[in-house]
């Protein structure tokens, strides 16, 4: 799974899932980071963390947009939990395309997110994929709410918010 390394994704606290699918043109990135900022504001993130999330999502999406195959869209899946936000962003790529991890943008991303990982995967293993074996590149990240870092987790997400939101076309 694309998010198998994520403690946040494994803790069973998924309360709400929101999927965004946009063209990989740079002009679409403002919409994606606005979504990230809005989600963060509605959760209990402090103001600096809200900015961190906007920036982290922007860096991930900009990195992926640069390696997307043709005009294939960018998919960003936000999962809000009691512990925080887990975000998977992915684009279809040419076979064998790696997520670039040597640039300044990646360094910024690592500074901003609590966990971040970039790797190759397939459509069958990413959230919102078409189930095929076609190549994709994924960036997954976690941002914990204050006091919700691993080891501090208590209880379960008892909310009944089971319905997924989707604004994908």
């Amino acid at each position, binding site marked *: 799974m694309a998010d198998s390394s994520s403690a946040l994704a494994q803790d069973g606290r998924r309360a709400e899932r929101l999927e965004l699918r946009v063209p990989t043109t740079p002009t679409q*990135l*403002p919409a994606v980071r606005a979504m990230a900022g809005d989600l963060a504001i509605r959760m209990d993130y402090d103001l600096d963390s809200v900015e*961190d999330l906007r*920036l982290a999502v*922007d860096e991930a999406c*900009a990195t992926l947009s640069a390696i997307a195959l043709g005009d294939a869209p960018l998919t960003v899946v936000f999962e809000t939990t009691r512990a925080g936000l887990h975000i998977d962003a992915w684009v279809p790529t040419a076979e064998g395309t790696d997520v670039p991890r040597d640039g*300044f943008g990646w*360094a*910024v991303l690592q500074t901003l997110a609590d966990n971040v990982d970039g790797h190759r995967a397939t459509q069958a293993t990413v959230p919102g994929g078409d189930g095929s074996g076609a190549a994709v590149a994924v960036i997954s990240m976690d941002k914990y709410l204050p006091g919700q870092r691993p080891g501090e987790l208590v209880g379960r997400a008892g909310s009944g918010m089971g319905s997924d939101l989707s604004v994908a076309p």
Partner: protein
Amino acid sequence: MTTVSPRPTSDLLTVETVPADGAVRVVCAGEVDCSTAPALRRALDDAFAGAPRAVVVDLEAVTFLDSAGLSVLAVAHRTADQAGSPMRVLVGTRAVSRALQVTGLWDLLGVELVVPGAGAA
């Protein structure tokens, strides 16, 4: 005061270059990201090319700044050192101050925080 906008910029970011008293003020408004950072870079290149007394990068009305924009500022800082034209960076929003702080550029650039409503620095 003359406002010179030598090249069109996108709707997401406006960049205006204002010469004043031998110095140049580059006034930005909007969001600096991978699509708009090149416009900021061109404006700063042009500003330093004129060997001004100083360059003021006014980011007070900038509401987003990512690694592409941070890179432009870091390069401009080096240009300023080499050209002997001091560069000041003015910031007015949390988004921009946070990006500069987490990357360590805040101290390197000697960023000045502009208090809202206090007028131009």
